[in-house]
């Protein structure tokens, strides 16, 4: 009973206690205009202080925004039958100590059939102090050296918004040459471009007329003058010209667009007019494969013309057909010690050549892209088959396959396979009786920023 009474007392106490609500008198907050004004003034002072801090920062940011830094790196794993290196006896260097060789290896007497490689490691600095003036500097890093790829100033004409002047070291005007490896689907440029435009760049000046901005005419004309020896010969001779001759390059392109059909057609033509100075007396070979004596100071022809076509069509994502063609005369002097030697045309004499490629490229969504390319380079159109007496004159057709996966927006992984098919000649004999086994498989990782 006591327990019940205690429990009742406790519960009554609890209820009574719970009902004792404190009588809060609601005190309206008196907001005076003065206090509001004071608060506004305080905030104004804070804003002014922030503005003071931000102004110099803005100035710094404006300065920094004039400098753009971009770049990319390509590392890859190659698998091949042998390393395809141009030599003075021919364009091929085969497996040592096997029946597949007719060229003794001096650099590496041990067979190598796979390799890791840093193909590209480049940083590009683009500085635009004022609109219409651009400075570009792009070094290339390899595991053994740092070389300069681009170093030029570009001035835009302010009056007609049509002309640009480029002075320095930059790509020669050509579609495939100017198309960066960063964007290219295929593992390497076509054989034709590698031979005609060693190192892609040259030292010189260029005037570009682009009639799109001002006149809405999709016509672009490049006229350039180059030293004509850059990328050729020992590196010590690539910092200045080796003769007074200048090579003139002209390229004109026109773009047709049919937006409703999702179709775009770019086409154009180009010409290269230059000369190669002879720097070694000796017996050279003319375009008809006839020997002639050349002396130091003589000039050899280096001139060709070309055409290009790129067709873009929007069907289940983009698809493109790209093609280029060049025909003309290439020349050179064999021997890596020669100051204007072109390592990709290691031959003493002149040759009438024909080169082209046809490439089909397809994008699949935003993550995948692939392509097939057929390219051909005939260094001597006057001879074919068993009529060819030296390996340097053999025609080579190359099939290239590539497929890329974009791991992120700036990282891609590519698989490539390259199949060169050389012309055969029993006159040369040996390995040139058949197609040489020189296919290459490449797994490439690319990061750009």
């Amino acid at each position, binding site marked *: 009973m006591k327990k019940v009474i205690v429990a009742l007392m406790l519960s009554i106490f609890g209820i009574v206690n719970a009902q004792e609500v404190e009588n809060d008198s609601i005190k309206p907050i008196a907001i005076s205009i003065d206090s509001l004004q004071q608060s506004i003034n305080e905030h104004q002072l804070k804003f002014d202080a922030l503005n003071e801090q931000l102004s110099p920062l803005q100035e710094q940011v404006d300065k920094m925004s004039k400098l753009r830094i971009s770049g990319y790196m390509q590392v890859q794993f190659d*698998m*091949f*039958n042998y390393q395809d290196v141009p030599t003075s006896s021919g364009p091929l260097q085969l497996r040592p100590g096997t029946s597949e060789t007719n060229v003794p290896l001096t650099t590496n007497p041990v067979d190598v*059939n*796979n390799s890791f490689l840093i193909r590209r490691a480049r940083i590009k600095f683009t500085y635009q102090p*004022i*609109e*219409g003036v651009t400075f570009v500097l792009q070094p290339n890093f390899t595991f053994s050296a740092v070389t300069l790829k681009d170093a030029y100033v570009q001035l835009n004409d*302010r009056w007609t918004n049509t002309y640009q002047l480029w002075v320095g070291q930059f790509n020669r005007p050509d579609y495939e040459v100017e*198309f*960066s490896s960063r*964007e290219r689907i295929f593992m390497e440029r076509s054989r034709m471009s590698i031979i005609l435009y060693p190192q892609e760049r040259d030292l010189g000046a260029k005037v570009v007329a*682009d009639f*799109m*901005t001002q006149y809405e005419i*999709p016509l672009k004309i490049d006229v350039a003058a180059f030293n004509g020896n850059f990328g050729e010969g020992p590196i010590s001779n690539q910092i200045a010209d080796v003769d007074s001759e200048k090579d003139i390059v002209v390229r004109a392109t026109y773009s047709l*667009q049919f*937006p409703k059909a*999702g179709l*775009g057609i770019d086409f154009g033509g180009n010409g290269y007019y230059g000369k190669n100075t002879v720097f070694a007396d000796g017996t050279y070979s003319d375009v008809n494969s006839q020997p002639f004596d050349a002396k130091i100071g003589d000039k050899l022809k280096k001139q060709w013309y070309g055409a290009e076509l*790129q067709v*873009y*069509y*929007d069907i*289940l*994502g*983009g*698809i*493109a057909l790209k093609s280029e063609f060049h025909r003309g005369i290439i020349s050179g002097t064999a021997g890596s010690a020669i100051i204007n030697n072109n390592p990709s045309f290691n031959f003493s004499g002149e040759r009438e050549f024909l080169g082209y490629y046809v490439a089909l*490229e*397809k*994008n*699949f*969504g*935003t*993550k*995948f*892209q*692939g392509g097939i390319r057929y390219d051909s380079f005939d260094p001597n159109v006057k001879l074919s088959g068993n009529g060819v007496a030296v390996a340097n004159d053999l025609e080579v057709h190359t099939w290239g396959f590539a*497929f890329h*996966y*974009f791991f992120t*927006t*700036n990282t891609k992984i590519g*698989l490539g*396979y390259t199949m060169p098919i050389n012309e055969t000649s029993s006159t040369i004999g040996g390995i040139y009786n058949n197609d040489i086994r020189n*296919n290459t*498989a490449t797994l490439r990782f690319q990061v750009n920023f």
Partner: protein
Amino acid sequence: MNTTKFKIAALLVVVMTIGFSFTTINKVTVKGSDTMVILSQKWAEVYMKKNPGASIQVTGGGSGVGLAALINGSTDIANSSRPIKASEIEKLKARYNSMGVEIPCAKDGLSVYLNKANPVTTLTLKQIGQIFAGKITNWNEVGGPDANIKLYGRESSSGTFGFFKDNVVKTDFSPSCQTLPGTAAIVNAVKKDKFSIGYGGAAYAEGVKDCAVKKDDKSPGILPTAATIKNHTYPISRYLYMYLKSKPTGEAKAFIDWILSSEGQALIAEVGYYPLK
């Protein structure tokens, strides 16, 4: 080496990945023009209410930023208050083997804002260009009081900046032109500064007055109104665009089709712009 297995494996990888690449998703990202952000968000909001399975993500940053995102693959649709540049098309070609798809989705007029206390009411296109280029620096050169002109403009990543530069200024802006982040900030600055001038979307001109614009000395001054912008008699009219890498498919196509429908176009006026028809 034995490349047969390598070839087969590579071929399998290629075939499988192509198959995966055509799977569609319901999420659509839209990025770009600050001028179009409010309009685009409105479209997205209404569309998602009608289509609960869809996800439309809208962000700003400026037309240039949106187009850069389209090129690098980080957005499905780029909003732009200026036409795409030839250099941007070249980048699309290089990356996607396509020239991109341009979809005009609304119309807008670019207003030239003046302070209400400024006696100047009309300017020719040439005068406006010279003012922003810094060649005309005093209001008395255009019939106003003897006072220096204070310039306010947008930052260079903005499509409004690009359109105004290409169509009105036609040269570099004066270094004295103060850049502000967004049209609202420009309107605010002109509101406070009697001798200032700014530019931006016609929809934003609150608390300031629109300058009547003459094509040349002989033409009449035209104010930016719904009628003059729609019929293009106002000299600084423009389209607002959406850009895609290639022809839209799946949810992106459904969203764009709806924007271009009478229902989507009806929302444009609510935000202060003008429908295509």
